[in-house]
């Protein structure tokens, strides 16, 4: 029931100099393939003889500069075009300001991670990408198309290119596992039951649930429900696959196995996309606060705190970042800028 913001079409709400904005784009976003901001002109970037960095954005209206002192806003290039891009997103729920000028990108063909302390708006980011929530201001581009500006019919079509694994799998309680996974195929394709069975069984085998196909969701463990949700998210072969805290409630071994599964599926989908010369390479985005998952799985890491990106970049660069906040968070130490407050 969210109201869409009345953002002027074709005009970027990004202030010049902000990350993702016209001036910062060339240096901070995802390399030379990065999609220009809506309304921006990629051919008119200035050539300067003076090394000039983009001015640092000020803190949100009701926050102090001290609160955002660790936000360097650096977005190191990934060398890939952006599959999804957040441009100066603000979102509040009542008096709680969750996203406070978020600029973020998910590069195509990579496993990206959105990391951050609990309650920083990571899941809210996912809901914005698929149009389940709309920003109070700002824009979200999916393959260059503005999600808040899409009419319902286009939005539903766009969502078919997404797969989303919810925290608890979000399996339909009235259907068994097989029917849950077959559901998107039956609703969106003209495939016969034989072909559907072949696809469903292949996906269920991939996630190790072929033998449990006749079980109801309430007969499955938390880990099984997640894997089942993963299988269901895969059946339509989406361009963008989102994982909302896939490791929550899992023991460390199963978390590691799920991470391996995500990597293996991504690798297979990449090979298939290249073989079939798909327009877009498969993009995975994992939302988590589990550092071990990030170290194992991520190609690209966005660290989110207080509604803004602290820093973003390729995983190896982020893991060796000098930023005290990033260092503390990615090493899981108790001493550092992040406290219980």
């Amino acid at each position, binding site marked *: 029931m969210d109201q869409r913001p009345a953002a002027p079409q074709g005009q970027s709400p990004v202030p010049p100099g902000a990350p993702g904005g016209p001036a910062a784009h060339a240096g901070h976003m995802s390399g030379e393939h990065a999609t220009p901001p809506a309304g921006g002109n990629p051919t008119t970037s200035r050539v300067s003889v003076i090394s000039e960095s983009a001015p640092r954005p000020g803190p949100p209206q009701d926050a102090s500069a001290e609160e955002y002192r660790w936000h360097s806003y650096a977005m190191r290039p990934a060398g890939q075009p952006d599959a999804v891009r957040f441009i100066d997103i603000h979102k509040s729920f009542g008096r709680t300001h969750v996203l406070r000028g978020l600029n973020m990108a998910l590069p195509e063909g990579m496993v990206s991670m959105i990391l951050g302390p609990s309650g920083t708006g990571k899941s809210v980011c996912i809901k914005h990408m698929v149009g389940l929530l709309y920003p109070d201001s700002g824009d979200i581009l999916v393959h260059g198309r503005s999600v808040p500006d899409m009419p319902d019919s286009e939005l*539903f079509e766009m*969502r078919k290119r997404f*797969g*989303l694994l*919810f925290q608890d799998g*979000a*399996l*339909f*309680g009235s259907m068994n596992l097989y029917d849950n996974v077959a559901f998107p195929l039956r*609703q969106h394709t003209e495939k016969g039951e034989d072909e559907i069975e072949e696809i469903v069984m292949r996906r269920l085998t991939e996630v190790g649930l072929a033998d449990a196909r006749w079980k109801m969701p309430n007969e499955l463990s938390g880990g099984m429900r997640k894997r089942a949700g993963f299988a269901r998210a895969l059946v339509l072969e989406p361009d963008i696959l989102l994982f909302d805290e896939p490791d929550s409630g899992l023991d460390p071994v199963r978390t590691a196995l799920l991470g391996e599964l995500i990597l293996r599926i991504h690798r297979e989908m990449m090979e298939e996309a290249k073989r079939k010369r798909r327009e877009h390479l498969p993009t995975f985005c994992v939302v988590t606060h589990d550092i071990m998952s990030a170290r194992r799985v991520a190609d690209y890491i966005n660290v989110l705190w207080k509604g803004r990106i602290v820093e973003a970049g390729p995983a190896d660069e982020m893991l060796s970042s000098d930023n005290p906040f990033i260092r503390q968070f990615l090493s899981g130490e108790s001493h550092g800028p992040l406290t219980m407050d």
Partner: protein
Amino acid sequence: MNDLLLTPRGWIEAWGQIVRFAARMIAEVASLRVMRFFGEALRQAGILIVSSTLVIWGLVFIIGLECGIEGAYFTYGEGTPAYSGVFAAWCDLRELVPLVFGYMMAAKVGTGIVAEIGSMRISDEIDALEVMGISAMRFLCATRLLAALIVLPFVYLCSIAAGFFASYLAVVQQIGYVSSGGFFLIFWQFQNPPDVLYSLIKAMAMAIVIVIVGCYYGYTASGGPVGVGTATAKSMVLNLVSVHLIGMLGTQLFWGANPRAPIGG
């Protein structure tokens, strides 16, 4: 003063949201967009038949017995036992069968819808539907409304038959102050086919409101299991008030100015 205005303003806002939600649901059915999920509508119709009809008929049967007993003794006390059929005709057809049908619909079907859709909301199943590119409003709400429109007229007509049969049993077989022929003579004089139609309109209006209210409170549930419980309670209150309002308005509209009966004077 501003605080005093907050509560009625909240009611008006909630009322506006329900009306807007109802308009969307009805538009999905009226425009036949819901036919894309006709299979789901049939499944919901099956659930309605299997899980609710016997309970509704059972309760209506009991009310029919009560109407018959009260009517038989009252008319006997007034020296007109032959007129006990009037009670069966009026009490059953015009008032109590629609009301009891509405009560059971609110208690069994309405709360069931809130609980089911509300649980789907808090467990992200509705979001999962939307992310798959499926309109949750159409798949969950419009299909239930279509199922109600398909099934409930027949369920209600059978309810009327159950109420009449129960009254006949009480008046003629149990108490026996009037013969079977005498009972039916008066019984048929005090009703005609339009009365059945009006009664059906009352009951279907109640059923449609109950399904819409149930879908609304389920679809907008939030706050975890407690939120679903609160939404269920709210829907029950609103549905019971709506059943009585529709019952009163229906009686005023259909029989208020003209009793449609052979009453002289």
